[in-house]
């Protein structure tokens, strides 16, 4: 009988292994104290790096609010358009809040909470432009095609509008081209265009053509259902306590974007 107790212990340990002691969940942002958030460094009013490591804009404020609601410390890193997915896939950021449109293709690799804001693809033109009134009238005109963004291509491919695409590395390069007449229009999210126009200050016109809905979500690792659900709750609160309206007014109140209805967007869902 001397081996009795040892055998018993082994049985108990085995029972423990297959039952209660093996509870494990996939990693979630909720298990961390500090979250690394990727924001745009290159978009005025949305996410702009004002000095190394210091950012400001709508997305930055949204990220700070969400961090506070989740009870987490936040540190920011640069997330250029082309880097957003990679930052999450390579674990260099926990969240990406960077005018990151929810698309089904992206959802095959990463997860999305939100959207926290719905914007529309729009068109920015010179103050004296009268012939361009909507997306169809871009046919035959020159348009900036920015690297890493598919906004201009979508006009040609999805809408079948034969516009001429002039490549550019970023939107900052597009602005002087537009003003000099080398191109006739810039197209992307209305809030990006509004930021560019505000900073430029020479009265560039936003058409309010609103032709493609862009649902900006919070990117996170795929499979983090708990984190996604908590983010959705925090976004709901952001709209309910008036913070969303306050932030939109703060950053886009003077931009010409229609802010008459500010309502919590329909969420994508976490599973």
């Amino acid at each position, binding site marked *: 009988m001397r081996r*009795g107790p040892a055998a018993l212990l082994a049985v108990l340990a085995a029972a423990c292994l297959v039952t209660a002691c093996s509870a494990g969940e996939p990693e979630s942002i909720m298990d961390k104290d500090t979250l690394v958030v990727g924001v745009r460094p290159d978009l005025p009013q949305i996410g702009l790096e004002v000095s190394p490591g210091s950012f400001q804009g709508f997305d930055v404020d949204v990220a700070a609010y969400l961090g506070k609601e989740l009870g987490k410390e936040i540190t920011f890193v640069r997330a250029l358009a082309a880097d957003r997915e990679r930052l999450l896939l390579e674990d260099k950021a926990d969240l990406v809040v960077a005018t990151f449109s929810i698309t089904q293709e992206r959802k095959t690799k990463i997860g999305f909470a939100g959207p926290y804001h719905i914007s529309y693809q729009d068109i920015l033109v010179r103050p004296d432009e009268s012939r361009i009134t909507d997306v169809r009238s871009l046919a035959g005109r020159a348009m900036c095609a920015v690297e890493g963004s598919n906004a201009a291509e979508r006009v040609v491919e999805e809408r079948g509008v034969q516009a001429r695409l002039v490549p550019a590395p970023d939107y900052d390069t597009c602005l002087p081209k537009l003003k000099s007449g080398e191109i006739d229009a810039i197209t992307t999210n209305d809030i990006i265009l509004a930021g560019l126009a505000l900073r430029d200050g020479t009265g560039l016109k936003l058409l309010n053509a609103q032709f493609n809905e862009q649902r900006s979500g919070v990117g996170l690792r795929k499979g983090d259902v708990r984190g996604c659900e908590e983010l959705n709750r925090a976004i709901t*609160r952001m709209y309910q306590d008036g913070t969303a309206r306050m932030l939109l007014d703060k950053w886009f109140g003077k931009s010409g974007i229609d802010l008459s209805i500010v309502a919590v967007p329909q*969420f994508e869902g976490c599973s």
Partner: protein
Amino acid sequence: MAVTQAPATRPAPAPGAPAKTPVKSPPRPVSVPGRVRLLTGLSLGALALMLGSVVLGALVAGAGVDDIGRDAGPQALATTGLYRNMSEMDALAAESLLQGRERGPEQADLELYDQRRRQIAEALLGAHELALDNTAEKNTITSLIEGLGRYERLASQARLLDRQSQHAPGPPPDDVVAVYQRATDLMHKELLPQAYNLTLESGTIVRRAYEDARSSATLANGAVALTGVLTLALLVVLQVYLTRRYRRVFNPMLLGATALVAVGLIGGAALLNSQDSALQAAKQDSFDEVLVLSRARAISNSLHGDQIRSLIDPERRDTYNHTFFDKSQSLVYIEAKSLGDYQAGLNGAFDDFVGLLGTTLVGQDRVKVFTAFQRFQQSDSQLRASDVRGGIAVFQQAAKADYAAYDQTMETLAKRHEVDFNRAIDSGAGALEALWRWVPAALVLAGALVLAGVRPRLKEYR
């Protein structure tokens, strides 16, 4: 087994009891009943712990089944109709404005509308009960109630203006349209998204209740297994000790007790396990499917709305076309650059599709829903290939019916899953009932048998 290999000359020290007996001299008689008492006490203690674990496990599992099956689950399912009922209420309001002078008596006109309103109120009440201390969810409900009140005000205003205008059947005068426009904007931009989010949040609440129920069930299962094995081991030790000390072959009472405990352990574990798998079936195979189908129906409903709006509002056609494309992609995703591309690509094999419907449906259900979805998209591509007039004709002749058939397919499926859900919950509750009825009784009887088996042996020392 370790028991049979034990050396015959020495009694086993009971776990926790000091092994102080000298090696050569036989133990004094008084230590034998002491040990028997100790072993009996330990066995009965372990048996009591096992009984406690079974009762606790049954209570915990019962709370889980009740929560998912009778409270949170059905309440969450009740909210799934919210989006569709609200959307239909708006469509009925628009329809009544088109009737003009040829409208019937007001009561008949509003009957369906009022029915939807009642269903909405019930769903909101259910959602409120489900929300408990979830403030964001409660605020959403408050905001929906407030918004529906505003919608009612605008809709009645439009209805009154419409009645006063006495217009011919067809589009009402501009002032009526302007008021209705505000109502439908409110519905589509503010209220419907919140209704959709409410269903998502209900799903979250149920998912978390389910995870809690499962992890406590796992703990309870572990406790039953642990205490069961401990009790069995102690009974075997007691049996062996008595056999050696009193030179009897077996103690039949103890043997019976051991068998009962073994049956209790196996039966208890099996029943707890079967209620756990019933809960799993209810949640993953039924509840989740109903929730996904109701979300898909909500998205499809607004997809259908985009189809209509692109016909009657040519100015914003590009936007509606885009949202139609985007929502279609979220239901069934295939790589495509434009809607035309997408609709052509849909003719491929069903297996490759992902998206809300693509990842959830399997087997025959998948084929049925996808075939209906394909037909709906085909008539839509015809509609888009025509001019406005032809488009309206296609809409009336094909697209409307194809949408209805597609929606009907999903509804039938959701109803079937709801029946499955209730069946799974009933089977889980049945397993628990059997657990309550048989296992504690077997364990109590085992305890009595242990006492009955040990008492005569102890008497020998009096």
